[in-house]
């Protein structure tokens, strides 16, 4: 089961798409004003990521190299439209909040990135797992960021206002960049500390 844990730790920690590879930054910055948005967007991205990874790794031998990117993007777009139709029908409230960012999942760098670098080179099961853990990594990090920005920006947690103080900076666009930067710095700090200790213990 070594492969499973490797893919899991890759997706969640070692190659966390939002904090380590810094992919999918557009929805991360825009939607982390509220934690609820983060979860909704995260789950939608995870669903699309798993399905597109599976289909792409199934078709990887058939697709010629010249039209590789258009076909990948087409497959991803189909799954996004399916999510869009399903959300519009069954959960309209989430559909309204996601607004213009739902179609932008198609160009979310995580999905096309993983399709290019992982799904088109690995078997189906690994691609599905990779999609799942990459999606979870993305969901967790943007929900955490959503919590911080929502709490500091409007004194609310998951929509329930606890305090009435609100620092306008955190719900503005400058605040989004700031929070994202601090999150990546913290993430780097922990990872460096962890790998340093591992290397020193193993080291000569």
């Amino acid at each position: 089961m070594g492969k499973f844990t490797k893919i899991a730790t890759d997706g969640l920690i070692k190659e966390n798409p939002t904090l380590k590879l810094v992919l999918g930054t557009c929805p991360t910055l825009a939607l982390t004003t509220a934690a609820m948005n983060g979860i909704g967007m995260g789950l939608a991205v995870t669903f699309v990521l798993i399905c597109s990874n599976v289909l792409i790794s199934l078709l990887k031998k058939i697709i010629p190299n010249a039209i590789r990117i258009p076909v990948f993007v087409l497959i991803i777009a189909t799954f996004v439209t399916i999510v869009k139709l399903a959300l519009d029908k069954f959960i309209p409230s989430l559909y309204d909040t996601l607004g213009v960012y739902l179609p932008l999942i198609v160009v979310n760098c995580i999905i096309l990135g993983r399709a290019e670098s992982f799904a088109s080179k690995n078997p189906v099961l690994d691609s599905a797992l990779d999609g799942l853990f990459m999606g979870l990594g993305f969901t967790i990090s943007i929900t955490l960021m959503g919590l911080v920005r929502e709490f500091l920006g409007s004194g609310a947690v998951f929509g329930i206002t606890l305090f009435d103080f609100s620092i306008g900076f955190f719900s503005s666009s400058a605040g989004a960049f700031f929070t994202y930067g601090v999150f990546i710095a913290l993430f780097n700090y922990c990872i460096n500390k962890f790998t340093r200790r591992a290397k020193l213990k193993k080291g000569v």
Partner: protein
Amino acid sequence: MGTILLIAVTAMFINNFVVVQFLGICPFLGVSKDTKSALGMGIAVTFVMTITCLITYPIYMYVLTPLNLDYLEVIVFIFVIASLVQMIEAVLKKFSPTLYNAMGIYLPLITTNCAVLGVAELVIDAGTASAFGLTEMGLLNSVAYGFFGGIGFTIAIVIMSGLREKLKTTNYNKHLKGFPIAMLTACFIAMAFYVFSMISI
């Protein structure tokens, strides 16, 4: 004429694609290490955004809406953009290798660039049109929106690359190395652009 001016100011400053609407951040952070490649990237994105609006707007307005197939909108747009970028990459590789080396290697990045699909989406959106006080954008206005959106992207990315080049010779905490310092620079640029949103037209 007034609307074009209004679109220009809005797309470049008030509703800047990168800093206010958060579209196209991946290349904005990835490619802004030095000004030359940042400018190359800006030109490429402006070029693709303008042509995208030129093609996707008519397709949506004269093909998809009359047959009310607007659920196809995402597929058709992204397919057109991906093919467009594929062609532009090949043309550039052949006819101007120097420009290709400066910009081309970032061209595949443009397919995964939210700004390009973002502009295609916003241009056909009723909300954007009513923001400019129009029923719908019309071809000329949408191409102008795409073009000035690209110019806004270029302005933001060139300012960013200037700042990041200055950062190369400063001493800052090791853990801020790489993306965090880029994010904080973008934060200050966003603050600067915040001033523009106070303008009421």
